[in-house]
């Protein structure tokens, strides 16, 4: 349940940068009269009247087609504009976080919570999400430095939360793995039956006794 809440939180926080400035009024970063988002940037002119002009929605910043500031694009850092194309990681991170949230929802609600393979796959998906969260934050900080808005700083929080979610998922994988080992299913416990059922004319007298496996308790909280 904690996992589900955390993963949903991460997914929601990844939505904010993606729907920033040209789409809505959420600002990924503010510098002088300029506001920046993932899909573009806007200029707010104040002198004649308050007037907001934005670029087209696309990845990577381009010069704004205006007469006033047409040739200028101010970035808070010394970075080149081409680095703004790396903002695409926000979208990748959002997709990844949605997939992870769905998987964790399935783990919580459905029977997939008992399968170690499914939990392993979701744990493996959580690793790139951690990487992309950190990557998003690094790109933001590289482009906008200290002028970063709250959606950008949320990425840093997401990175920490994702590290926690990752470790929780791996711990869950261990727990489920141990549980499935201790309560081995019939086919795993009696591997003979699988073969014996496939043969029609089976001699009942040659049925083998099932293996006596030692059931032991293993350490769960080693790491």
């Amino acid at each position, binding site marked *: 349940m904690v996992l589900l809440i955390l993963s949903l939180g991460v997914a929601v926080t990844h939505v904010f940068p993606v729907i920033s400035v040209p789409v809505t009024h959420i600002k990924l970063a503010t510098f002088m009269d300029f506001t920046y988002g993932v899909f573009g940037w806007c200029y707010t002119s104040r002198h004649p009247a308050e007037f907001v002009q934005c670029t087209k929605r696309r990845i990577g910043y381009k010069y704004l087609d205006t007469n006033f500031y047409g040739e200028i694009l101010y970035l808070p*850092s010394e970075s080149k504009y*081409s680095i703004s194309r*790396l903002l695409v990681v926000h979208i990748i991170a959002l997709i990844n976080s949605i997939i992870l949230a769905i998987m964790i929802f399935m783990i919580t609600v459905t029977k997939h919570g008992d399968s170690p393979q499914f939990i392993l796959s979701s744990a493996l998906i959580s690793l790139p999400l951690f*990487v992309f969260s950190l990557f998003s934050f*690094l790109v933001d900080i590289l482009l906008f430095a200290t002028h970063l808005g709250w959606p950008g700083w949320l990425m840093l929080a997401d990175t920490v939360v994702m590290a926690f979610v990752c470790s929780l998922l791996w711990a869950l994988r261990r727990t489920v*793995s141990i549980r499935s080992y201790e309560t081995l299913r019939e086919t795993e416990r009696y591997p003979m039956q699988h073969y014996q059922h496939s043969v029609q*004319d089976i*001699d009942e007298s040659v049925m*083998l006794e099932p293996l006596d496996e030692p059931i032991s308790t293993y350490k769960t909280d*080693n790491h």
Partner: protein
Amino acid sequence: MTGTLYDIPATYWDPIVKDWNRFISLDDSQSCSFRYGIFPMIISFTTNFIITFTLTVLVFLSMNDKPYIYASRSLKLGSLVATINLAISLTNLINLLKKQYEKLGMLGRFYMVQFFELNATFVALDFISTFILQCSQTFILMRMFERKKEKQVIFAVGISLAIISNLLWAVPRYHEIIHGISVKNENDNWELLPPFVYMFKIIIAASYASLIIKFIVNKRHQCFKTAQLTLLTIFTIIVVLLLPGFFVADLASFWIYELSELFNTTCYVGCTFVVWEWLERLSIIQKRQQAQSILGRAIYEDEQQNYTFAKYTLKVQDALTRKESVCSSSTSVFTRSEDVLEKLVAGLDSNATTAKTIKLNSISQSVSDNDDPISTNDELHELQSINRVQFNTERSYTDILHETFDNTINHVVYFSDKIGKNIGSYSMGSGSKSSTNSRRGKEQVKKRIGLDMTNKVYVYSTKDVQFDSDVDDEDDDNNEDTSTRDV
């Protein structure tokens, strides 16, 4: 007239002095501030070289190859390559500065920065050393996680990340070297790659740091047990956070960005070796605790989940019993004894292909005799699939790779147990005696089998054991003798 220039009462022209003062008061990379001069670069470069050299010497002095043979060897190789790289670069750089001074009469940092970007030797050796050290970091992480599946995941993820990041790093660098122009000055897609790779490397370093910090948090009771280990743990945390820290410093100051590659090399060597040394000391405490506990080393469920050998045995057993039942149902295609014999031959012989072909021939004959070819073919197929002993069939590459990896892990676990035993004996104070003990043991064995004194000749008594009856007989004989004498 004797005297120096100072004796002449002359000053610079005022506009020049003003201009100069303005020039040195600017605080950016284009100014003439001491911070952006050549001397801090030389000092930092030399310091890097000395640190890396010292760490390499320490690596070769303190690291044993076993049990973690890949980790130790990759670390040794990586640090050696890094040291050689820095030594060559330092020599070339001094030569470059000398030529520059002789030609221009000044020392500028432009050529120095250009040297690091466009020198093919530096780039190639840096690429190799960074890649090897990242692999070594992966092996160290594998050592920290004891479960088989987690080790596999760490190995796959770590090595692939190392390959990707280094290849992406090398491509623009070689592009620069070949075209002789910095990628940053071009206005195409190339300029996107260096910052991407830079951040990618930072992310890898941050992941490494977070995994180690998580490990420290989990093992906090052991990590802070003694004062020495506490200091080493804190040092480990600092060293591991150095690389991500440089990113922050890079944002703050342009100066570091130019030299980030140099710092990177030292940081990689440092954060690999220090973590290794810390783990070594931590493992001694762990092994001691495990030795004191009842059960010893923890065993995990995935070490036993495969039951490879047991499954194989069961399959063979099952095949035998099934074959018997098939024989009893189908009216005497083979006799049971022949069947079992054939099965044993097929199963036990390592070159069982001949046996199998014989069997196939005989079965095909029986098919021709029998009127139900489909069912017999099915049986044949089933039998064959069960009869498939692993060494008879050609395995796929993935199987071989999987098995090799499993064997590697098993070796690692085995040697870790072994080294744990050795460390245990060492910590008990008997480590130095181990060689004398083994020598004594060898001498004992030699003595036992009679190889210790080969030159000496012994005369063995032919009668070792004296039975009472013999004694009685002798007594009787003596008695008879005496009696005869008496008579």
